[in-house]
């Protein structure tokens, strides 16, 4: 069986929605590549946006564990994202009031550790609550985290934010010096000059790092989701009393899902800090939380492919609204336009496609089971 046949078989397995979406994504990626190579789009900025999309995808996958797997309405995504970002920034940034200058790997551990501890602290009182109370309480506690970051400036530099954060691979042997060592390639495309210089190679390494983070998260989540543990979570989401009647300690499972999801969100935060190289309390605004909610609902609750897709759509919305607002295509500023788009998207999705664009199909089934079953019509 050749590659073409395998692809054909894969294509036949997809649902109608998945085919439409795959085509749309393919066309978009191709279009962006053409724009980049012809000099219309700055390749460095494009890679930065790609990194941002991957960051939102990480946050969405984290929320997916909590909402999509276990049915926990967590409105404190921004807090865990912020804890990851601040955890690493406080240890690695030059302007950090407490430490600074430590290697980013230590920052990564600190960010994840901080988020893990806070997840347990927030989870203990709130995970026993009814779903709508959990939503309110988690939003409130996320605001408390934001207030602490904003006001305890002797530790966090307050509203100034932390700058001078190094790239994640700074100081690594070979890799750290790679962007500076690689040659600068320049040519003039139809849309303007195209430059692949040091900043481009830096962003390219960032993207590779992102792919590493995403790959590791997806691997862990796939294993977890298909395991007996994942099955218990899905039972809790469908009917918590049933799970209890089956002898499952639901509180413990919910706590594990909450912490696992928060760690993945914090990973997104760590990546963000070393991508943007600047963090401020503004990053912890509740709107970040609801961006991620849109991504998860849009992609399809419970689906990791959906979360991945949703994360990149969020960046498209952010950039699209900036373009439409700044270019005066519509007579509305970028910031309010973004709020309206996000709001309308939530309303329309809940009305017309509450299951999202890519609801989980075969993600819950071991691949071997699919391979062994008889043929089925398209």
């Amino acid at each position, binding site marked *: 069986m050749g590659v073409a046949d395998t692809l054909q078989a894969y294509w036949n397995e997809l649902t109608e929605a998945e085919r439409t979406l795959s085509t749309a994504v393919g066309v978009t990626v191709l279009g962006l590549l053409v724009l980049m190579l012809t000099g219309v789009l700055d390749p460095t900025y494009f890679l930065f946006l790609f990194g941002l999309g991957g960051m939102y995808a990480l946050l969405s996958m984290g929320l997916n564990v909590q909402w999509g797997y276990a049915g926990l*309405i967590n409105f404190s995504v921004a807090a865990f994202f912020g804890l990851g970002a601040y955890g690493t920034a406080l240890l690695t940034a030059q302007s950090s009031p407490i430490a600074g200058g430590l290697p980013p790997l230590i920052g990564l551990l600190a960010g994840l550790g901080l988020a893990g501890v806070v997840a347990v602290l927030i989870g203990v009182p709130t995970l026993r609550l*009814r779903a709508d109370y959990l939503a*309110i309480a988690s*939003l409130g506690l996320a605001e*408390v985290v934001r207030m*602490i970051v904003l006001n305890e400036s002797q530790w966090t530099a307050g509203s100034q934010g932390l700058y001078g954060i190094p790239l994640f691979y700074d100081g690594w042997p070979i890799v750290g010096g790679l962007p500076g060592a690689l040659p600068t390639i320049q040519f003039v495309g139809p849309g303007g000059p195209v430059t692949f210089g040091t900043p481009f190679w830096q962003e390219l390494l960032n993207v590779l790092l992102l792919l590493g983070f995403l790959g590791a998260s997806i691997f862990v989540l796939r294993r977890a989701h298909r395991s007996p543990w994942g099955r218990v979570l899905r039972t809790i989401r469908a009917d918590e009393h049933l799970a209890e009647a089956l002898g499952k300690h639901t509180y413990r499972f919910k706590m594990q899902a909450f912490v696992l999801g928060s760690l993945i969100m914090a990973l997104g935060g760590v990546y963000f800090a070393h991508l943007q190289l600047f963090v401020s309390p503004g990053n912890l605004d509740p709107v970040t939380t609801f961006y991620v909610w849109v991504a998860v609902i849009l992609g399809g609750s419970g689906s990791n492919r959906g979360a991945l897709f949703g994360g990149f759509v969020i960046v498209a919305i952010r950039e699209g609204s900036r373009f439409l607002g700044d270019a005066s295509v519509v007579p509305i500023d970028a*910031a309010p336009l973004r709020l309206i788009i996000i*709001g309308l998207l939530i309303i329309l999705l809940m009305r017309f496609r509450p299951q999202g664009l890519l609801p989980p199909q075969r993600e819950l089934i071991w691949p071997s089971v699919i391979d062994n079953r008889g043929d089925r019509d398209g």
Partner: protein
Amino acid sequence: MPALELVLRHVANGIVYSSIIVLGSIGLSLIYSIAGFANFAHGDTMTVGAYATLIASGAFGGLGVTVLGLPLGFLPALLIGGLVAAGVAVLTDRFVYEPLDVGSLGLLITSIGVAYVYRGVIQARFGSDPRQYAVPAQQPIDTLAAIGLQITPQDVAIVLSAVILVTGLHVLLQYTDFGRKMRATADNPELARASGIRTKAIRRRTWVIGAGLAGVGGAFLGLFNQLGPRMGFSLLLIVFAAVIFGGIGSIYGALLGSAVIGLVVQLVPLLSIYGLPIGIEYAEAVAFLIMVAVLLVRPQGIAGEVIEEGEI
């Protein structure tokens, strides 16, 4: 300054602040009982009321004589603010919430979308800079200033209006046919419908009352602080704290909860006198922590009835 005087001053502020919160919390609680979900757009409904009042007070301007530090023209402006908020909420219910079939959690998530649309539209029209009503700045009332209380006539107007509105609602709920039907619908919608109550009409009127009160509350919030597109969303968690403290679904609980949470938020600065170094910047954080504590110890709130998990 003597400690007692300081305490009195903060208590007075707390009463004014509580009066604003109660206008939001009653509506939130009513809508929770009748429509069946925690409405995260309620704070932004308050913002809608505040900005509608801003436009209306610009139209009526300094109409007439000044009563309690407010031009008489502010009264119709306030009324319009409440009516616009009510109208927007009813339209939202009709075209957004009612056609949905996604359960109470889906409605909750949808209401966040609604909140962002409200805020986005307001920010698009008015920008994000803070605004103020064109009413004369107020000096504290002289006689009260003599005993150390800094209360402006506008503060008195806010508290008085809140008392009148809450009393009116109490009469409406307890002594009218509509009130009885509404309480019946909140208690058990199916039974109410079976008894011949038009629950759909009740639901509409609940939105009118709840959002109308919120709109007026938002206008007062703009008077108390200033107007901004984020004003209502920022207050939302405080309003939730008040509702949860009193017991979600209970109007009188919301009244009690607003009084307690409003006072707590305004009294936090006093804690530093008594050795607890919690600054005013954490006033809201203290309210949220009280809310979480209440949820843990007594999830049905102080005045609420026990709600079984399956009922929502």
